[in-house]
């Protein structure tokens, strides 16, 4: 609409400024037609020189034809200024033919003068003045006479001055109005550009709004779809400002009941929060906020995502164990706006873990009971002094005993593996020297090594090597490595157990000159029930739990476990355990 108005105004302006030659000529043409009719119709007017009058009319008719051509043919338009000059000549002739100085139609000269004067450029003032002079002096020009009276001279010279002055004024006015017009045009252009920009902005705004709505719909959809996790948003003080359907499902209250009314810590066990605050060493009573809440968001506040188990308290007072991750909400500048609490109900997971533990425990118990009888009665038989067994029977008995012990160890290993998996790995840790562990392991392995014809060596440092650990478990780990080394080393080989230290760690290495392990199998070596092909090929007994357990024990002590091996040359296991800082001796 605004566009349309602008266009109309613009066309009008440009027509005013530059009407076609035909339009400009039309005034002169009409006036001359009117004059011609008058001079015929009104008695007493008539032609003083019909030939001259008619040729004047003809000239103007010619000029009119030219103006039509110049209007039609665009390339000729720039020559249109010749038309008013021809008009002046034509009018000069017409005036001369209708009485000369007495002609009623002298004033028509003003029409082409105005045309000329209004043209852009001061030279047209001169053209107008000269043209006027020619027109007024026309009778003398055609009759090749000179003006007779001074009045006639004066008319020839003075009138052009008057017309020239008028032309100058018109020219200046036209120039001014052209300038105004161009300013108005510039303003109109500006306005149009602004309008364009506004329209563009409006379109952009509309698009952004549509995007925003689409995102909002998506967000609402996702938010509503999370029904198994509780997602709660709070401000920096813990006041809840977002509450998803999962939160309602797990905790009870609806978003309406919770948002802007309740705090996140209303759903936590106060004791747990206090314990955590103590763990983080919050001085009691000195925190700005609720200390429990500070403890809850401690890691998130420092920009770390944290996930740990907490107990939520439902609206009805019942408890629900959850795995809760807390993250920080920030504004564009990175300042903390609040926190997000995403929690999963782990009741079921805990129940499954409990059932699994229970099952493993039950199986172990049920396997141990018959083993107790087997081992007990075998021992009774061995110890029966009244009916001593023959050496042969005694040998059979040993085999039965050895295998019963193997079964027993297997049961223990299975149970231990299950404990490692469930993350419940009992460690009775204390500061302890490692040397005795190594020595004990070597001593207990010596009979087996001797029987297998294997040389067993140990390398110990001069100083005491102290680590923080469970002596029983570490002993088990070292025992596993030595018994493996012996099992996989042929008669005549050597097994070396060394304890060393570097800057931070105690390092125990168990090196054998055994059959080795294929390189492709090294990374699977510590997986449960994995057996190296060299082990199965050589019928070395085992189920593939020893290294799994050993690694689990070492990892539980924050240590590392590594292996290097070459098939047919030997294997070296390397266990590192963090050293305890050496206590200053006085």
């Amino acid at each position, binding site marked *: 609409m605004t566009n349309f108005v602008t266009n109309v105004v613009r066309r009008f302006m440009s027509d005013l400024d530059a009407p076609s030659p035909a339009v400009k000529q039309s005034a002169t043409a009409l006036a001359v037609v009117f004059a011609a009719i008058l001079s015929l119709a009104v008695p007493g007017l008539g032609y003083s020189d019909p030939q001259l009058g008619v040729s004047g009319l003809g000239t103007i008719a010619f000029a009119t034809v030219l103006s039509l051509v110049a209007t039609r043919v665009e390339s000729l338009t720039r020559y249109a200024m010749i038309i008013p000059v021809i008009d002046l000549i034509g009018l000069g002739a017409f005036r001369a033919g209708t009485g000369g100085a007495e002609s009623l139609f002298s004033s028509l000269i003003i029409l082409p003068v105005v045309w000329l004067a209004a043209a852009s450029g001061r030279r047209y003032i001169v053209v107008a003045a000269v043209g006027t002079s020619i027109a007024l002096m026309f009778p003398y020009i055609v009759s090749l006479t000179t003006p007779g009276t001074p009045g006639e001279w004066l008319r020839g010279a003075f009138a052009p001055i008057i017309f020239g002055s008028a032309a100058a004024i018109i020219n200046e006015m036209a120039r001014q109005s052209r300038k105004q017009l161009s300013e108005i045009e510039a303003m109109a252009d500006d306005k149009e550009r602004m309008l364009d920009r506004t329209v563009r902005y409006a379109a952009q705004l509309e698009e952004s709004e549509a995007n925003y709505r689409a995102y909002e719909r998506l967000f609402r959809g996702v938010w509503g779809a999370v029904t198994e996790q509780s997602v709660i948003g709070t401000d920096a003080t813990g006041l809840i400002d977002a509450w998803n359907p999962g939160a309602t499902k797990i905790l009870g209250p609806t978003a309406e009941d919770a948002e802007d009314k309740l705090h996140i810590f209303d759903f936590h066990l106060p004791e747990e929060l206090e314990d955590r605050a103590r763990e983080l060493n919050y001085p009691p009573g000195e925190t700005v906020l609720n200390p429990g809440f500070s403890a809850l968001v401690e890691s998130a506040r420092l920009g770390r995502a944290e996930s740990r188990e907490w107990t939520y308290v439902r609206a009805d007072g019942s408890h629900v164990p959850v795995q809760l991750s807390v993250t920080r909400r920030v504004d564009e500048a990175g300042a903390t706006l609040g926190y997000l609490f995403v929690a999963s109900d782990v009741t079921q997971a805990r129940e499954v873990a409990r059932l699994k533990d229970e099952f493993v425990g039950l199986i172990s*118990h049920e396997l*141990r*009971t018959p083993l107790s*009888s087997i081992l*007990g009665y075998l021992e*009774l038989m061995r*110890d029966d002094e009244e009916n001593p067994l023959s050496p042969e029977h005694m040998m059979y008995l040993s085999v039965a005993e050895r295998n019963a012990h193997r079964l027993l160890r297997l049961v223990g290993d299975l149970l231990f593996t299950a404990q490692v998996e469930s993350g419940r790995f009992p460690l009775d840790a204390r500061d302890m020297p490692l040397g005795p562990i190594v020595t004990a392991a070597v001593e207990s392995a010596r009979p087996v090594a001797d029987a297998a014809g294997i040389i067993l060596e140990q390398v110990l440092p001069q100083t005491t090597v102290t680590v923080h650990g469970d002596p029983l478990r570490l002993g088990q780990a070292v025992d596993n490595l030595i018994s493996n080394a012996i099992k996989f080393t042929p008669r005549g080989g050597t097994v070396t157990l060394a304890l060393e230290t570097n800057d931070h760690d105690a390092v125990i290495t168990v090196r054998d000159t055994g059959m080795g392990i294929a390189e492709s199998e090294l990374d699977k070596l510590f997986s449960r029930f994995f057996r190296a092909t060299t082990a199965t090929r050589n019928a070395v007994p085992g189920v593939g739990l020893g290294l799994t357990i050993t690694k689990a024990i070492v990892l539980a002590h924050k240590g590392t476990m590594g292996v290097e091996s070459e098939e047919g040359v030997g294997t070296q296991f390397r266990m590192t355990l963090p050293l305890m800082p050496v206590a200053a001796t006085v």
Partner: protein
Amino acid sequence: MSATVVVADDDPDIRTLVSLSVVKAGLTMVASAEDGAQALAAIREHRPDLAILDVSMPEMTGLEICRAVREDASFHDLRILLLSASVDENTQAVGIAAGADYFLAKPFSPRELVAWLAVGKEAR
């Protein structure tokens, strides 16, 4: 007079194994029970010097018997040895807390049990 003993285990083979050890050590077997209720009844009836009880038994566990017996001041002098095939590391602590005096994990060596029992033979 040698010390008297009540043995209770739901597994008959283990029960026999323990009983044999008791006799071998020169103690006097006064009763052998195959569940917790029987064991408690035998303890109340025979008032032995020592009760050797399996932890997991039907009717009443060894732990429950311990607690029941310790509530009765007249059993102040009764010594209790708990036997367990449990794999839970806490069992021993729980047993001692329930009032047991000793704890022996299965599988156990009859030889060692006999030696241990023989030391306390003349406890009375």
